[in-house]
Each structure stands twice: as C-alpha cells, then as structure tokens.
C-alpha cells in the first residue's frame, strides 16, 4: 500500500520541493498545508497516515498542531522538521507525540529512509 503523506510547511518553495521529492520516491502526497489551521482542516478531510510537520508555522506552533492531529487520529505518525536549534526541542517534539525529529537541511535519502522506517508494514 502506498503511504499517504501530508506536508505542513509554511515556506512554499520547500513545501513544493518536498512534495515533488516524495512523489518521485513513490509516496502519495495527499495534502500540502502552509498554516496550522489549514493542516487541521486538510488532515480531518484527507486522513493521511504520515505528516511531515514544520515546527515553525505562522499561526500556531507545529507542536500544537501535532497534538491536535493526534487527538483527531491517534494512529497518525508525525515527523518533525525544523530549522530551530533551541535546547530541549527534541524532547518537546517527542513529548508532543512526534515519532521522529529532523533538523533542516536534510538529504532526500534521510527523509525517505525515515518515512520507510516508520511506515506500516
């Protein structure tokens, strides 16, 4: 089964290249959200199995959005991606329910490898 993915990233050029890259690697990108509000709406409608979540969004924090998505569907797997470097951020992300944490910039093989690792068998 092709894993369905939602990308939440406020910087459109990054969101688009992420979508292209994921599709080129055989994943189905069902939604592309650039705000927290959009992410919750699209998630409720599309119910992707995996969410790639930027932690810095214009309207709310990525961690807040993660908590909301997990409330809607506890089985969702969220991969946090961020350019931030604050101490304790990884712990906060894992406590919020993210299953993986990646610091930007990352290589395609790193993200693809992470998605394959957490995908349902």
């Amino acid at each position: 089964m092709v894993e369905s993915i939602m990308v939440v990233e406020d910087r459109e050029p990054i969101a688009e290249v992420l979508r292209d890259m994921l599709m080129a690697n055989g994943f189905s990108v069902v939604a592309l959200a650039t705000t927290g509000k959009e992410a919750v709406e699209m998630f409720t409608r599309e119910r992707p199995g995996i969410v790639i979540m930027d932690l810095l969004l214009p309207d709310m924090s990525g961690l807040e959005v993660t908590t909301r998505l997990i409330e809607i569907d506890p089985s969702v797997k969220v991969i946090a991606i961020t350019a931030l470097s604050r101490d304790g951020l990884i712990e906060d992300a894992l406590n919020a329910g993210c299953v993986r944490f990646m610091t930007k910039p990352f290589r395609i093989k790193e993200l693809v490898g992470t998605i394959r690792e957490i995908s349902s068998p």
Partner: protein
Amino acid sequence: MTGNRMTEIYKELDLLSTELGPVGGGPNPPAHEDVPTFEIDMKGHLLKVPPLIVEITGFSKEELGLLSFQNIIFNEDRNKLLSSMSSIAAGAPVVITELELFSEESGAHPVEVIMLPIRKGGEVSGAWGVIKDIKGRKHLEDSLLRTRELQERSQRFLSDFVSLMAREIRQPLTEMLLTLEMLHSGHFGDVNDRQKARMDQLITAVDRLKGILNQAIDSSKDAGREIKLEKDTLDLKEVLKGTVLERKGLLESKGIKYDLTLPERSVMVQLDRKAIQQAIGNLIDHGAGQMPKGGAIRIDMEMRNEAILVTFTDSGPGIPEEEVEQLFERFHVDRDREGGSFIEGLSLYMAKRIIETHGGRIWCESFPGLGTSILMTLPVKTVDQGG
C-alpha cells in the same frame, strides 16, 4: 557566605576572645570604654555605642542613646535583627548578620554585625558585639555580580543571535539541497555526467555549510557554559594517541604529515576524557588550519617537574606577535588568513578553558615564517614507574 569569609569571622572571634576573654555564651562585654563594641538590651535599645555607628549615622552618642537599633536600620532589615535577637534569646552563642544602617552621607551603609549574648543571673538580658564596615566589600561583590550578569546577558544574546541566524540560513539551504538532489536525480530532465559532478560538489558544499552552522550553534552555547568535569585517573599518553588517530584521516586528506613523540611510561593525570579530547582535537585542528596547502604537525609530550608538557608544532607561516596575544580570546579571527573562521577562534578559547579548568596552562609561541607551537601543561598525578 564564602568559606574564606567564615574563616575571617572565626579569626575575628578568636581575636575578640583573646582580647576580651572567651566569647560565645561565657562572659559579658568588657567594661573598658575604648573597645569598639556595642551593647543592646532585648528591646534593641542602644546601651553602648561604638564610634563607627556615630560616624556612619551622623547621630551623636547622646542621640543614639535615646534610640534603638531598629531606629537606625532600614525597614527591610528589621526582621533580620529581630530574628537575630530571638536566636540570642534562645541561647545561640553567636549570631552574625548583615544589615544596612541609615547613613547621613550615602543613605544606606552596609555593616556586618557579630552579636553575642549578655547574661545576667543566668538569663539573657541583651547582646553585645562588634560592628564591621563592609561597604568596600559589598561594593566589590556588587561589581562582580554586575559584571557576571553582563557576561551572561551578552552570552545569551550571542547564543540567540547565532540560533536565529542559523534558522534563517537553514531554510534556503533546505530548498537548495533538496532541489539540487532532485536535479541530480534527473527529475527535471536529463543530466550529463559533468553536470552531475558539479552538482555533487554543490551538495557537498551545502553539507559543509550545514556542519559549520551546527558547530557555530554548539560553540556559541558551549562558550558561556560552565565547564563541568567528570574526572578519572587516565593515561594522558593514551588519550593523546587516540585523539591524534581520530584526526589521522582529516590530516592526511589535507596533505599534512604528523609525528607523535610520547614518553615510554604511562602518564597518569586526573582528567575528563571527553573534555581533554575536545581540547587536543581543537589544537590539532588549529595547527591543520594553519597549513591549507599541506605541511607537518609535530606533537611532543614530555615530563617537566610535576607537570606534563605537550607541544603542538605546525610548519605553517607562523602568527604575528600581536595576534599571538589574542589567540585564545573568544572569537579571535585571524583576519589575514583565508581559512580563519570565528569557530576556529572559539575552539582555541574552549581549549584554554578546558586546560585551565584541569589546573593546567596553555600558551603560544610563534616564529613568523617558521611555524607555531602551542604548549600546554597539565598537573600529573603519578608517573607509572613500571613502564
């Protein structure tokens, strides 16, 4: 209160007991007038006034005789005085407290009060003791505190600034890296081998930038952090050898030969392995940074009395005298050299802090045109005689 200060106070008490008889629950205050002690009753009325109180408050002895101790200190300190008096009443042999007296001149004047009980018929009827002017000491303590706060603030500013800068740079780097990889994979059309090779170079450059950013963030956080050591007794010879071996690949890739001269015997030193490895690694990296076109690094380790001396000598161009003096300063940058970076500056600053926290010393000797030596010493625990 620091241990040193407590030692001073005990010395003062000893002096008092020598001059005035044993203190601490025993005798009452001396009868003679010329000893600068004070006396108060349990309500705080001043029964005997030393010249220092007259001098600070600007009141005459007669005026002070009509007042209580509470009248000449600030409101905030009244509870401190009451609590000291309660301790004296409850049988404490000595109470030491810091108070602020009203001062005609400066408004508030800090003093230290060493107070002992006065006993009459077995009951505590008041207190006596000495008052010490600590304005100078307080001023010094306040300046130190302010300097420290300022340092911490500038440190936080630096760390926040670097993190913010890194965040802004990481976003476009992400876009560049992912797009480059997509281009490389042929996603946007056919790519020939020559184009692929150029893209590989760019991808490596982005990776390097990512590494520099991470290092800058770590260093800016480390630079202000107190170095906490977890020391073990370890053979410095082995630690040095291990760290050099870790750098072997890096040195070879830069066309740098290395030569390591170690003593035959083990050199046992109390050290934090990770911290010393970081310091040694930083010194080797600095040496390598001096020779962008290749060269040689010699590392010598030898005993010098109670210490071990390690010398890192490179065959680079040397460092001008005025730069040598600033070499270990935080963010020192060698402005004339292309490879110089502020991370490199931080790395020597960190090495110095680590070595000094181990009780050692570090310095630089450079001969322009001939090369540079960085020397460090560490105190040795024992030298294994067995070889």
